[in-house]
């Protein structure tokens, strides 16, 4: 089955479930049936199911279906939960601090989830097409190696040319650049502004070099390019890894707040009746 077919099938199923759900809400949507209780329980159950995906990822060895199938369910059930949520709050802004906090938590969790889906579809393609494949944890090591290569080159250049021009240029403009992996927003939307700035500066600098110095300066700029690709991978891989650090705490907070909400609802349910 192609991804397109799978997506189409799952989307159609989701639309069907949404239509059914809306039909049920309309049919039973009277105070007599306390529809808010039903949508609330549906939402809570969905949250539990969505939360189970995280647990499934931890128990990798048990034969309980592929994680990718669970993620498919997680994604579409997450989208469905948005519909249940807006029905649960009756398409109005919640009143009261606790309910507002709960709603904000839900919206934030849903948005980070959608952002995660977006990142996981867009970023891998960008990573594939730029530089060499590099393992995230090794990026600092590669950065260090590049820095050492650059330093060696500068020393050699200084000795061979008896000039400190390239060394000074490195010290003034590139030492910090090579110091550690850099995180930059420019990479997120594919801009190469940083590199362009460095290229322009390099071209300007090259006008004042003799042939021997120029050769070293060009070699140095090759290292700059490599570092740029490394930073690109660092930024995008960081994003792929760390959006979960927002999504997961929000999920835990949401589950906790929902449980409290549930207890409060049942505590005051009799009074409401």
């Amino acid at each position, binding site marked *: 089955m192609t991804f397109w077919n799978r997506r189409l099938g799952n989307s159609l199923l989701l639309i069907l479930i949404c239509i059914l759900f809306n039909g049920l809400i309309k049919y039973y949507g009277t105070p007599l049936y306390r529809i808010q209780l039903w949508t609330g329980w549906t939402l809570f159950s969905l949250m539990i199911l969505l939360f189970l995906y995280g647990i499934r990822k931890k128990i*990798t*060895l*048990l*034969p309980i279906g592929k*994680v990718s199938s669970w993620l498919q369910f997680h994604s579409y059930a997450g989208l469905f939960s948005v519909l249940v949520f807006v029905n649960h709050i009756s398409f109005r802004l919640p009143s009261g601090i606790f309910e507002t906090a709960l709603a904000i938590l839900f919206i934030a969790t849903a948005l980070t989830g959608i952002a995660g889906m977006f*990142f996981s579809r867009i*970023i*891998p393609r960008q*990573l594939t097409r730029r530089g060499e494949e590099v393992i995230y944890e090794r990026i600092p090591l590669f950065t260090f190696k590049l820095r050492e290569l650059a330093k060696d080159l500068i020393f050699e250049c200084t000795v061979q040319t008896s000039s400190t021009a390239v060394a000074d240029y490195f010290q003034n403009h590139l030492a910090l650049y090579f110091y550690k992996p850099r995180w930059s927003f420019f990479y997120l939307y594919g801009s190469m502004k940083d590199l362009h700035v460095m290229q322009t500066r390099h071209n300007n600098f090259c006008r004042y070099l003799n042939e021997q110095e120029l050769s070293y300066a060009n070699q140095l700029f090759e290292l700059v390019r490599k570092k740029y690709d490394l930073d690109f991978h660092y930024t995008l891989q960081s994003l*792929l890894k760390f959006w979960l650090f927002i999504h997961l705490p929000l999920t835990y907070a949401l589950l906790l707040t929902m449980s409290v909400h549930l207890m409060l609802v049942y505590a005051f349910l009799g009074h409401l009746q």
Partner: protein
Amino acid sequence: MIAKENCWDPQMSTELVEHILLFKLFDSMIKDELPGYSSSADIFRINAGDMESLMALDLSSGLEQPSLPENNRLIDIICKHTRIVKYKKGDVIIKQGDYGNSAFFIASGKVAVILPPGLPEYQLEQPSDQKIGLLETVKKMWQQPCYPEQRGLQKSNSAYSARERQLHLDNVNDALKKYEHAELHSGEMFGEVGALGRTARTSTIVAEIYCELLEIRWQGLRDLRLLNSDFRKAIDDLYQKNSLLVHLYSLPLFSSLSNSEILLIAEHASFRTYGSFEWQADYKNKLESNSLTSQKSETLIVAEGGCADSIYLVSSGFARVSYKYNNGHQVLEYLGKGDIYGLETIIYNWKNNSRLHVKTSLYALGYADIIQIPGSIIERMVLPAMNGNEMDSYLSSELLQLFAKQKENSPVEELNTNEAVLDFMSDYHFINGSSTMLIDTDRCTRCDECVTACAVGHNNNPRFNRHGYRYDHFMVANACMHCKDPVCMIGCPTSAIQRNPSEGQIIINDELCIGCSTCANSCPYENISMVEARDSNGLVMRDEETQKPILKATKCNLCIDQPGGPACERACPHDALERIDIQDLPVMIGWMNR
């Protein structure tokens, strides 16, 4: 006993093995050096004291191959690589489809070779490999060791000892009456095709009466071949003849032929090995010199433009079919065991009464055992029995296009197939892999869930690197591919690296591994890692004498003991990772074009 016309002629193999003379080889050595042992059969009943004196003898003196290592004397080979095994009546010695690393000489008794199609599956039901249960799996996940590569934590994997589980046929007489079989007697040998060809067993072999067999691991066969040229020639002849027969019998192309017709084809067929059996060294050199994509250094089997007068059956190894494209060669397809080359041209010429030449070249990839059968035999015995649909099934659309171009005498244009992928897979010999780890880097989020899952399944030690050669956005990761031709097994001195008998995965028995690194050096794909073993305190274990760290070879075992199969594949949230048989082109191309 069945009618001779309908079965594999036992006389043929009997005649062959009479020329092997392993026992006679032993005899001539033993009689002179060890009075009291009149025949080689006595060597099986040798007592401890005599064994010591036998060990002291240099039985290989006077033999050729003076460059052999000192410990490669006949007696050393016997002691290291052979053992006596005893089977009761009805015991299954070899099961068809299993993988084995040994050949057997019959010291006494009689065995029956069940001829294809063989016994039904239910009669050979084997207790499945002891995969660990769910509770044990959960326990394993919670009890991860603190240090990497700790040893002595768990008992050895039961799957490794699968060969010790004896399969038995209760009603052996009834089975032999019912199914075609051939008999082998004392002094004959069997199992060499699977052992030397690193392939699955082709027949089931059952003890007809109580048997004593000399089991020789393939390392022993290898060393004996080096030790004595007569033995080498005899074993090679037997291997070729049996491999040829087994192959002819297993081909659907010849399924409609009678036994005598197949034997006639065998008489006209010739068996030849192209390339080097130990091709991995050449592969590594080419990789280092960045000349993998050059086809010049590969062994040519059939040249493009030659006369279409034979068909070529791939008996083992791999070959690539390519055609000239400008100044290079474009891969059209690759062939593995059981594939046929040249039949389509013969069919096309026969059907259309034309004389087209071979439009493609056939090269050995690494090495290939090829059986060549003259086209005239095929035209006389096979084609008349085939109907139009059968013939058309051998004519692929690509080839028809090539034929049409040849008739028009116009240059070949680029074909609409996934040639570039084929080029890549064959250049790097990835077609060897039966469970190659492919990663779609356009979907992989680099989350390393696959690596984590692998580590959890192997006591906190990941057994692959998410890194490797890439074609477009597909990466062949550094994970054991469980090769069809596992060259890593070639040099292992202790048989620690072996095929899982039932499912064919390549596994390493940690207890047998002596850390010699031969397998790691042999693996052309660098998918075996040598690690330092640690004790329960996390300290590196050292050899008492040399104080050097104790090394162990490690690699992916395809989660053979896990209830759900490869954890890496199941753990990938984005369907970016798949274990694929690269030779299964429809599956691979389908997966790539999802």
